[in-house]
């Protein structure tokens, strides 16, 4: 029954997936409560161009995607602030532009379309050892920063004005959250693919928010749901010969749906 654990490719996928799942889950709670759920989706589209650039220049696509996602995240933040655009408008503008650039690059250089397919739909079972260590290191960094700034992040998410009046450096923390989101999106892209990465950021956190009475509990439930989805999804993928990205996201959705029903009954 546990034979899958003896395969190197499965061990690598499981190891990277677990860390990335926790990073996504913790950050997702802040994104949802800041009404910023779509930023993951938007930055994921931009990473498509980043991956295409990486493949074109024969640089590790994870690096180019990371740089482009961080830069775009910061630009979206500035545009929202300076141009007075609604958050979702700025995200829509930059995500579609990023995706358009990706499509253009693919059409100009058709020899990497197969590689790109793996980034679009995710192929965690094919993750390289180098990518595993990079993912684990970045995921750990994200988790560390989120936990280190847990209280000021929570304060500015809950009551921005009071946080500012208490000396919390809200603009710096906004920037930090944007950078963490961009990193997490790129990590999630490797696990479930560009098209489904927003799900990994949002669904476990949304599930946690259904039942939690405190912020800590919301983050804990979110992390458990994310771990359950990634571990269970990989297991189902292996035995059912199914795409791992789809099984991971569908398991996360099942948990969300279950918690949603439980919450409804509690209120009922």
């Amino acid at each position, binding site marked *: 029954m546990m034979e899958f654990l003896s395969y190197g490719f499965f061990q690598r996928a499981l190891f990277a997936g677990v860390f990335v799942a926790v990073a996504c889950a913790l950050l997702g709670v802040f994104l949802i409560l800041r009404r910023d759920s779509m930023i993951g989706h938007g930055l994921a589209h931009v990473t498509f161009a980043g991956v295409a650039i990486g493949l074109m220049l024969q640089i590790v696509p994870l690096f180019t995607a990371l740089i482009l996602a961080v830069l775009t995240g910061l630009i979206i933040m500035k545009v929202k602030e300076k141009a007075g655009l609604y958050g979702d408008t700025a995200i829509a503008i930059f995500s579609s532009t990023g995706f358009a650039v990706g499509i253009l690059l693919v059409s100009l250089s058709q020899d990497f379309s197969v590689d790109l397919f793996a980034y679009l739909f995710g192929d965690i079972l094919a993750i390289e050892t180098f990518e595993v260590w990079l993912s684990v290191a970045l995921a750990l960094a994200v988790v560390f920063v989120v936990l280190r700034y847990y*209280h000021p992040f929570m304060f500015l998410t*809950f009551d921005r004005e*009071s946080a500012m*009046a*208490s*000396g919390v450096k809200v603009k710096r923390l906004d920037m930090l959250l944007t950078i963490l989101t961009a990193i997490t999106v790129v990590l999630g892209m490797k696990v479930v693919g560009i098209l489904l990465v927003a799900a990994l950021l949002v669904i476990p956190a949304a599930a946690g928010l259904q039942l*939690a009475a*405190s912020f*800590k509990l919301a983050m804990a439930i979110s992390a458990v749901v994310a771990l359950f989805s990634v571990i269970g999804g990989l297991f189902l993928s292996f035995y059912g010969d199914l795409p791992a990205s789809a099984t991971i996201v569908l398991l996360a959705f099942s948990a969300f749906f279950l918690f949603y029903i439980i919450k409804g009954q509690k209120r009922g």
Partner: protein
Amino acid sequence: MESLVSVEGVSFRFGHHQVLNDIVLSIYSGDFLGILGPNGSGKTTLLKIILGLLKPSQGRVLLMQKSQHDFTEWGKIGYVPQNATHIDPYFPVSVQEVVAMGIKSLAPSERVAKAGEAQAIQEALKHVGMESHRTRRIGQLSGGQQQRVFIARAIVNRPRILFLDEPTTGVDAQTQEQFYDMLARINQDEKITIVLVTHEIGIINKHITKVACLNQSLIYHGSHGEFCSSQAFKELLEGGHHLVSHRH
């Protein structure tokens, strides 16, 4: 008496609209100051300028003798914003976590030891009579109870001065009365200076010791007793504001 806040010739424009005009005001240690004035008189704007949330078009503010730029001891200032209770009722944060935000978000140089933080949270909740609710979600509380929790968050660092902006909007008269009694206790027992922005001059009348009456310009600043016989007070009443009389 020590000046905690000095507002020096502050003006503020929003587009072509002059919101505040050359305000000069000092707030001293121990004051229970009511900033009064009709809607749109610039009270909230002045408060936000004092707290550094808005930049004045002209003039400057000193906090505890330091310019806002050089001021770092934000734990010495407490703030309860307008509409503080207009929160997302499903936001997953417990009463204890709300109060903890105030103390655990300070810069490392201002923070106390972890055990001291837990005790400070406990004491702040006790001051506002909410210690038995500490594990409840904030959204499950009534508006009056939520407001008490926000006061607890604002006083958890034992600030020297506490600012409140229209703190009892939408709260019934009896709860308002209890709320202002609680503020008076905090002012007298804890020696915390209180600055209260309100357009309701009646209910706070028995507690405030000083008044700053604002209508774009500062039209009165002085003791509460003299304010009641001043022209500014009569004008305020003529503007439709009601006085509820209390014994001192």
